[in-house]
């Protein structure tokens, strides 16, 4: 990979894994440097590149099933005809991959691993070997998932929510092996992130540079830590649920089998008790990345720093009390829906407030529209639409109609695409100079930006309209539904699919820009964006141990831009007063 060769020491070989001595001057083999490394930066790269490969797989899946929807029955170039069963497997695994194997590894694991030690001014994670184990389990989970597509019966097709009894019995799902492997992969992925989360939280609590108080931490670190806590606090019930489902599938237990005293509703509660906090698990890191970029490129102090942290904490806590809004019409006691309507609508307050603060930060700024800034701004602009459309669904009365339509689908893609695509590109383009010691092309970056954001809207606005027209989800062909098979609606499907082709094609530009710049780009200085936070005081790319010689001391918060007492418009955290 593109980690440039540096003459620096690489003390983390097998036998010195946890030993941060800097006097161990032997060359590392390829395997110990790239495969078995315990260096947080290398593990971050492993997560990022694995996530990128999985994103290509998930992208290929959406290409195949969107083509089927726009041009029913066509032989999809590069895939073939999409049967009903394959369609289900494609949509199921597209969702699973994009959330668990793209958003999670890139936003939390890659940026968390890369940024936490660097931004806190320490040399590595607290538990480097645990960190390596986390990635290895994650990689195993990805392999298990990919294998599940090719077993007899094909991949699991019971939707990413895997509601039993469909997911529990092979005679219903017709994917005996696919269902089980899917479940094992998801459970392994959870284990990987539990281990990673322990590391993130412990490192942020214990390894901050001297002088750095909790409220001197950059917002992105706060967000990743809060996200890790949310994940760890919510995933336990679902892991228990996954074990029960595994037993139902393979041992003949009846946890979710109503004919023998089980209850399929139990799974839904376990799943969504995790599933809703999970939304914020991926949202918060993207909000954090955006905060870093907005301040740097508007040369502004973060407006009301503590309010941002409080809104994130408030959102996080509330997110544990909204899960049943996914189950309004699933047969829960209808009185319960009223409680969850209230909590769901109330959660709009902290998130709206966070967005207000972001906009307020731009006030009085000196704004430069660099590529990372465009991505960060687009996150705010697009996420707002995802946010407000959520209220149509949180309002239980309206959800009776919108539930399981494309309106839901368009809503959450207006949250997840800003999070996992726009937020990720913001982070990659912003920290690329630090990661690879070279600059990405700004011109090609902007072409890629517009080529992604415009088609994104042209994909999902038509899907809002289709949802309003009553188009229900996970249907491989609407030809059997006369009201939905009309040309006016088919044209919207074709528009969405063709826009998707454009969006996918522009990702080639990103990949070329990424790999070309990693090897041939203009050399980056230590601090190309004139940023305050500690990672920019390390070399680009940082050597093993991050800060050779003296470790940084911290004298102020992370967002002292354009301070009136200073000539420079930035004031690095480690510069003595």
């Amino acid at each position, binding site marked *: 990979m593109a980690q440039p060769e540096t003459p620096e020491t690489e003390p983390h070989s097998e036998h010195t894994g946890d030993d941060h001595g800097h006097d161990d001057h032997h060359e590392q083999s390829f395997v110990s440097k790239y495969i078995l490394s315990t260096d947080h930066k290398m593990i971050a790269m492993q997560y990022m590149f694995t996530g990128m490969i999985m994103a290509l797989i998930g992208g290929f899946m959406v290409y195949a099933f969107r083509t089927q929807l726009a041009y029913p029955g066509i032989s999809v170039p590069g895939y073939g005809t999409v049967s009903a069963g394959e369609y289900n497997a494609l949509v199921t695994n597209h969702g699973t991959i994009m959330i668990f194997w793209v958003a999670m590894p890139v936003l939390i694991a890659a940026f968390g691993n890369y940024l936490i030690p660097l931004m806190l001014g320490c040399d590595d994670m607290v538990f480097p070997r645990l960190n390596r184990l986390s990635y290895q389990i994650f990689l195993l989970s990805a392999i298990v998932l990919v294998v599940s597509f090719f077993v007899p019966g094909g991949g699991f097709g019971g939707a990413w929510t895997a*509601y039993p009894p469909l997911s529990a019995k092979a005679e219903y799902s017709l994917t005996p092996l696919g269902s089980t492997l899917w479940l094992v992969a998801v459970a392994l992925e959870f284990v990987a992130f539990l281990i990673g989360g322990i590391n993130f939280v412990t490192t942020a609590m214990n390894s901050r540079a001297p002088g750095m108080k909790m409220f001197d931490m950059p917002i992105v670190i706060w967000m990743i830590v809060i996200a890790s806590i949310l994940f760890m606090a919510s995933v336990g019930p679902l892991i228990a649920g996954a074990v029960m489902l595994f037993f139902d599938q393979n041992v003949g237990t009846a946890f979710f089998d109503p004919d023998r005293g089980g209850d399929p509703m139990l799974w839904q509660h376990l799943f969504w008790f995790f599933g809703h906090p999970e939304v914020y698990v991926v949202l918060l890191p993207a909000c954090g990345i955006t905060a870093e970029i907005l301040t740097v490129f508007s040369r502004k102090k973060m407006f009301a720093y503590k309010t941002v942290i409080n809104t994130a904490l408030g959102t996080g806590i509330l997110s544990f009390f909204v899960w049943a809004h996914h189950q309004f019409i699933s047969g829960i006691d209808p009185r319960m829906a009223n409680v969850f309507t209230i909590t769901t609508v109330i959660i709009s307050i902290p998130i709206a407030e966070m967005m207000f603060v972001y*906009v307020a930060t731009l006030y009085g700024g000196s704004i430069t*529209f660099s590529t990372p800034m465009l991505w960060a701004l687009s996150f705010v602009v697009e996420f707002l639409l995802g946010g*407000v459309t959520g209220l149509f669904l949180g309002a239980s009365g309206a959800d009776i109609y919108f539930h399981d339509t494309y309106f839901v689908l368009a809503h959450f893609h207006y949250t997840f695409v800003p999070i996992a695509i726009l937020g990720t590109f913001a982070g990659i383009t912003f920290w690329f100079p630090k990661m690879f010691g070279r600059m990405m092309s700004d011109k090609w970056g902007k072409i890629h930006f517009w080529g992604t954001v415009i088609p994104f809207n042209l994909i999902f606005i038509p899907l809002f309209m289709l949802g309003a*027209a009553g188009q229900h989800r996970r249907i491989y062909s609407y030809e*059997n539904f006369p009201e939905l098979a009309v040309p006016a609606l088919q044209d919207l499907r074709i528009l969405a699919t063709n826009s998707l082709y454009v969006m996918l094609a522009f990702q080639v530009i990103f990949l070329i820009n990424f790999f070309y710049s990693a090897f041939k780009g203009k050399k980056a200085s230590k601090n190309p964006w004139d940023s305050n936070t500690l990672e920019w005081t390390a070399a680009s790319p940082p050597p093993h141990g991050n800060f050779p010689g003296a470790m940084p001391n911290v004298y102020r918060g992370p967002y002292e831009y*354009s301070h009136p007492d200073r000539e420079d418009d930035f004031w690095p955290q480690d510069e003595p007063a």
Partner: protein
Amino acid sequence: MVEHYLTAASSYATDIDNLIWLVTIIVMPWFFLVQGILFYFLFKFKKKDGQKAQYITGEEAHQMRWVSVPHILVLLCDIVLIFGAIRVWVDIKQDMPTPDATVRIIAQQWAWTFVHPGPDNKIDTDDDIWTVDELHLENGQTYQYKLESRDVMHSFSVPVFRLKQDALPGRVISGWFKPIKEGNWSIQCAEMCGIGHGLMPARVIIESAAAHAAWISAHGPGKLAAATPAASAPAPQTAPAPQAP
């Protein structure tokens, strides 16, 4: 918005359409306001040579007001929205008006079975009329439905009614609807139920009292098998045999 695409064929369809408008009127001004301010700032505070950005902490009281006042306004909007949502919800899902008739809806992989009351206007009697993928209703009558599933989860969705209710194996879920418009419209399964999920279309046929009475007498006791080929399909109403471990 929805009424642009779909007629309102149940007594509460318009309530839901109005609720959707209420949400739109509450949230979209916020959306456009925030976007407007954001883009205004982007143009106004674009980098100019020699001009330094302002230093604003956002932590003083007069600055916090820019966030705390919208915060309270959002809360007020949320309260209106919650009341509107719950009012519609309680009416449709929680209250049960006295029904004129009851229909049983049975979902299975991958078909709908409808059990209509016969001339005695009661279900679970000998003169019940069983159909597959065709629900016959009399216009203006209030129906109670009893929804069940024989295998996996399904969801009974009638877009023109704005109604959706999941069918859960092991439970009988009750609800109601009152058709207000004659016609023939789509019923969907809205919950992933296996490879035939896209092959569960059914029709709801809303008839005048006379036409419905004629349909009942044409399909009444003794005429079951001959009348509609569909009606011969449903198996006896037994739960699927428990699976041996």
